[in-house]
């Protein structure tokens, strides 16, 4: 549905986005992950037309678009980070303002429907500055949904909410039948509601793809004695095995290993190595799948 091609964005001399390439598939919920300052918000702002990219192209349904063009903005519902709203308006006035600009027919009906779905009907006439963070977030979310835009860009939609409100927003988002790009620091939540994931690190795309594919990578936890980490790293690198985590515990070394091939291959390589080195003593060999937070740590480690 939307493809970013070689997007660069500079602020002053600092290059924030470096040749960012990724695709948001139609109907998918894509999680955009990265540590603070990785470039998530900048990426979302570039897509939403808050500011222009310095280089690169954005393709929407196969056509090159200018995100600064206000006609393209009709296709997008954007919830910025920190959800800035006008505190002097009531939710009804605010949603009316957004709806009028988006030229949405049957606006009052849509506002009432969204307020019901997000449980803030009783707060429609209260000034926004009197609302709690949770209600403000719901109002912001309702504003992005007005007119059912085909693409939603949600920057940290659950930030600062209590667990109950997080669940409410999460359930609401996962039930939406539209294409969504969302960023979040809560990885378990991303794993739960997203079916695709893009990991960004220092302005570059570190990984992207369907969630299952990313989580399919095998991971082996082993505990060894009789060798050194540096030596192991050298050998394993030659076999295309990544060390996700290593830790020394007395004489033993605890390792978490992963590779792009399947688990049996990974096990076989380890067994072969242990047989080749009689001094090595293998105490533990535990296989499993990588969790999203482990992949995230691995890809965004400083």
């Amino acid at each position, binding site marked *: 549905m939307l493809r970013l091609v070689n997007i660069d964005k500079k602020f002053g001399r600092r290059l924030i986005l470096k040749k960012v390439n990724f695709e948001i598939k139609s109907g998918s919920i894509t999680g955009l992950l990265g540590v603070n300052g990785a470039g998530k918000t900048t990426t979302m*702002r570039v897509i*939403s*037309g*808050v*500011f*222009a990219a310095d280089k690169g192209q954005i393709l929407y349904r196969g056509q090159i678009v200018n995100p*600064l063009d*206000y*006609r393209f*903005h*009709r296709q*997008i519902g*954007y919830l*910025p980070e*920190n959800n*800035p*709203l*006008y*505190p*002097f*308006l009531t939710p009804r*006035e605010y949603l*009316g*303002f*957004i709806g*009028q*600009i*988006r*030229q949405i027919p049957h606006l009052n009906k849509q506002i009432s429907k969204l307020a019901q779905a997000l449980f803030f009907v009783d707060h429609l006439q209260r000034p926004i500055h009197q609302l709690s963070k949770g209600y403000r977030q719901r109002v912001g979310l309702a*504003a992005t949904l007005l007119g059912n835009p085909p693409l939603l860009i949600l920057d940290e939609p659950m930030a600062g909410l209590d667990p109950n409100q997080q669940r409410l927003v999460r359930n609401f988002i996962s039930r939406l039948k539209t294409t969504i790009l969302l960023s979040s620091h809560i990885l378990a939540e991303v794993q739960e509601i997203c079916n695709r994931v893009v990991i960004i690190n220092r302005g570059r795309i570190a990984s992207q793809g369907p969630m299952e594919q990313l989580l399919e990578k095998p991971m082996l936890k082993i505990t060894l004695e009789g060798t050194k980490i540096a030596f192991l790293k050298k050998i394993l690198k030659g076999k295309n095995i990544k060390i996700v985590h290593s830790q020394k515990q007395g004489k033993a070394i605890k390792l978490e290993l992963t590779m792009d091939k399947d688990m049996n291959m990974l096990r076989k390589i380890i067994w072969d190595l242990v047989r080749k080195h009689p001094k090595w003593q293998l105490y533990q060999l535990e296989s499993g799948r990588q969790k999203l937070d482990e992949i995230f740590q691995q890809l965004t480690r400083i």
Partner: protein
Amino acid sequence: MKNFWALYQKDLRFLFRQPLTFVFLALLGLLNNWVFLNLLFLNRQANLQALWQNMPFFLILLAPLISTVIHDEEEKTGSWEILASLPLTESAIVLAKLTASLSLLALAIVETAPLAITVAVIGHPDLGLIFSGYLACMLLSIAYLTASFSIANLSRQSLANFFLGFLLLLGDDLLGQEFVLARLPGKIALISRYLSLRSHYQNIAGGLLTLGDITFIASWLLIFAILAFLMIKRRRK
């Protein structure tokens, strides 16, 4: 047009939901009435000349103040990001903010209507002059607001923007002040007078509307409106 109307309503709500707006309107009304009535009984003339003489001073202070406040509202709440992502043009944003600010100033000017009525009741004023006075006030308000709004977009330092706007308007006003013009050589004095909004304002308030006045005010509006438009566009770079 629908976009403009929605933005205008939002900006107007912002201005008229600030308690400070009502304090400002009350103070301005009191001040104008007090100054004018004092001069009216001193001059013993049934016209509003004393009011028109003081108006530029009020506007030099008020236009940058309102422009800074209305611009700062988006800056403080971070709602520029919302505006930038909506199907809106920069010109609709500029036009709506200017019109909302002008509505507030227009209300402040309308507050002087009791003075016009008083003059009409106690004397036989030239109604054409009263009308041209109000027209001059409105034109000066639009011109001052356009300039100070474009300055308000210069940086994110509201106080600096306010002072810069204030100094620009004060400087322009001084160019048309008699005590400045008297110290300037002939041709430069002529140019200086033409460049000052005050001289055009005085012409119109005095019932004299020339092509020169219209050209100058229209050019002023066009230049500063384009500047404001470009400043807002620059935010997206």
